């Protein structure tokens, strides 16, 4: 039904002062569909929208509109209209003139403009508001004016940049449904940007999940939820238990010491994987009937279901169940094989090993200093002679983000943050390499942080000079 792409992005790369914002994005947007660009802040979703609108010029790649390349077409000549994040209504004009703004530029007759504006204001439920100054409107009403202003120009594609972000929850829910109905009524292509996964699932025909300037997955809301492509998508969409596992053979995965049946194939033997299990797919059974056992730590009533936290070894499972459990009770955890989703790790697990020469050492204070990416790092309570090669193994929990802003390595990029049962597993990227860190704190993806090492937790050994 929707084969012809209205807008096509081909290999779009966008950099902003050396920071990669979009990394080889290719995306087809089909006619009359409601597509949502979903992702955490800093993932590049708004930039993608601005590339389509023409406000940003990608350094490479092509933008096509109905098959025609429009890279060099300025925004005012593109047949797309945008609903801006903070509405961007013209404060010096009233509701009517705001909506009529685009039409007046098209040199339409006065009566035609009047008729179209009236019609559009009726569509967005703002009949009789024509003469009001926009400043006197509530947030929801301003929102409607902004939508009417974009729609009245009769564009092929409407771009919406987090248009509901500034509204309160109740109004946002109402507007979600209204927007969806409006899109169906007007038969236009909507490209919607949001960081709210529920909003995306509610409204979209297709969802495009973005992370770190790349598209993580495109699919229908059902696909994205039921068959997430990787741990990031699983973590971002809905709630999920994401646990490190090892693929023993086809259809067999080891998880927290237990061997479980699953339906995924084609992994290498003993390949480390991410195992994703949705909270509602976990069955609570008697302890002797399941391979995994745990102790109930917490039960919260959520209306439709109970949210049960179960500690299974050192991992905290989240379970949704209509039956409550007693806190402190031992229970069995069972998951049907087809509900166990096996995913390749997004990054081959980096190690935090550092092999380097001692830069200088201080016998008196018992310290050793190494050079790490051009920065001198002093290891306390350790002494190795200058010029010796040493290997420092840092476990993930030996890394932390400096609270006072001064780290061993400044400006380390947070590539991904995924909740793994008990800790966040954070992948960081410095100038020369990647790091893996464990933290209980929710860090913000796609930001730069100062990284510190706790060398008390490190294992340090001397290696021979030729060993790499």
């Amino acid at each position, binding site marked *: 039904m929707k084969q012809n792409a209205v807008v096509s992005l081909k290999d779009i790369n966008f950099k902003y002062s050396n920071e990669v914002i979009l990394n080889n994005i290719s995306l087809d947007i089909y006619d009359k569909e409601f597509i949502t660009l979903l992702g955490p802040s800093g993932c590049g979703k708004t930039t993608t929208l601005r590339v389509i609108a023409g406000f940003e010029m990608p350094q490479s790649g092509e933008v096509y509109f109905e098959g025609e390349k429009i890279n060099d077409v300025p925004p005012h000549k593109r047949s797309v209209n945008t609903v801006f994040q903070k509405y961007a209504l013209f404060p010096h004009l009233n509701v009517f003139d705001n909506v009529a703004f*685009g039409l007046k530029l098209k040199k339409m007759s006065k009566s035609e403009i009047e008729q179209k504006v009236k019609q559009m204001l009726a569509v967005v439920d703002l009949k009789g508001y024509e003469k009001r100054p926009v400043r006197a409107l509530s947030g929801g009403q301003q929102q409607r004016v902004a939508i009417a202003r974009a729609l009245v120009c009769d564009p092929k594609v409407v771009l919406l940049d987090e248009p509901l972000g500034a509204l309160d929850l109740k109004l946002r829910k109402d507007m979600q449904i209204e927007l969806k109905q409006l899109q169906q009524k007007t038969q236009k292509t909507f490209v919607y940007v949001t960081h709210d996964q529920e909003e995306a699932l509610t409204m979209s025909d297709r969802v495009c999940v973005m992370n770190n300037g790349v598209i993580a997955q495109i699919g229908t809301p059902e696909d994205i939820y039921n068959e997430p492509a990787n741990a990031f998508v699983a973590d971002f969409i809905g709630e999920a238990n994401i646990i490190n596992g090892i693929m023993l053979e086809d259809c067999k995965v080891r998880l927290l010491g237990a061997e479980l049946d699953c339906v995924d194939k084609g992994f290498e033997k003993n390949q480390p994987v991410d195992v994703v299990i949705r909270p509602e797919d976990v069955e609570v059974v008697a302890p002797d009937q399941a391979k995994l056992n745990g102790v109930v730590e917490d039960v919260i009533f959520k209306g439709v279901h109970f949210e049960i936290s179960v500690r299974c070894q050192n991992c905290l499972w989240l379970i949704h169940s209509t039956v409550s459990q007693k806190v402190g009770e031992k229970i069995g955890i069972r998951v049907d094989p087809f509900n166990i989703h096996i995913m390749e790790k997004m990054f081959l697990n980096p190690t935090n090993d550092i092999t380097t020469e001692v830069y200088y050492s201080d016998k008196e204070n018992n310290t050793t200093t190494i050079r790490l990416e051009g920065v001198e790092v002093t290891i306390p309570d350790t002494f190795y002679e200058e010029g010796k090669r040493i290997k420092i193994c840092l476990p993930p929990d030996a890394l932390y983000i400096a609270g006072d802003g001064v780290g061993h390595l400044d400006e380390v990029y947070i590539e991904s943050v995924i909740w793994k049962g008990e800790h966040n597993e954070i992948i960081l990227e410095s100038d020369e390499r990647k790091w893996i860190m464990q933290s209980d704190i929710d860090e913000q993806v796609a930001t730069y942080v100062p990284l510190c090492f706790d060398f008390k937790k490190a294992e340090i050994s001397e290696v021979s000079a030729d060993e790499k």
Partner: protein
Amino acid sequence: MKSKRPAIPYIGWMLVFTIVPLVMVFYYAFTDSKGHFSLEPFRNASVYSEVFLYSLWIALISTLICLVLAYPLAFSISRCSERGQSMIVMFLMVPMWMNFLLRIYAWVLILQNYGPLDMILKTFGVDVTLIGNSGAVIVGMVYEFLPFMILPLHAVMGKIDSSLIEAAQDLGCNGFYVFRKVILPLSVPGIISGVTMVFVPTASTFLVAQYLGGTQFMIGDVIERVFQSDHNTGSAIAVVLMVVILGFLVFMNRFGDKEAVNG
């Protein structure tokens, strides 16, 4: 109700140094040298009507030149980074740290016959008198009062959200229409205060014309000269100037209100 007590020193200051002198000016304007009520001073003042109109004309031209120069500059400043903005604004203020008279003297030196500019032009075969005419007065005025046009314009333009400009482009405005339909109407308050802040002092200032204008004085200079010998006539000219400027202010404010409503 907020306490008005902190305003007392200011009110006292106003009373002694503004209200009382003003009352005195009015008193002199409506009396003759013997202290009787008379319209004689105004009759005497009418001799200077030509200078008066000339002053308003110079003020008008200077204000327009200031506006034309300041508008694009203020706009480009407002689109700079915050750091850049405060840098440029600071540079604009630097000349104001110098005394007003010194700045005028500087222009006398630049423009005088056989001065640097004159010599440069002569080597190109252009022989004009740069000083002692209306042009020199206007140059001096524009130089003196340009910052007073730029600052209010910049203050208003800095508040124009760049997403409004994008919204206008998005709805089909090319560069000219973005200016015409969004930037211009939204910067009207800045234009009004800028024009007011430049026109009022240029119309009434003195010394600039004395140093740069040769024999052609402006009304400010006339008031200064006449007042020294004849308080009554001097006051009468001052009152007329005051009324004209007040009229101008009322007109500008009306205009501003109308713009704000109609867009």
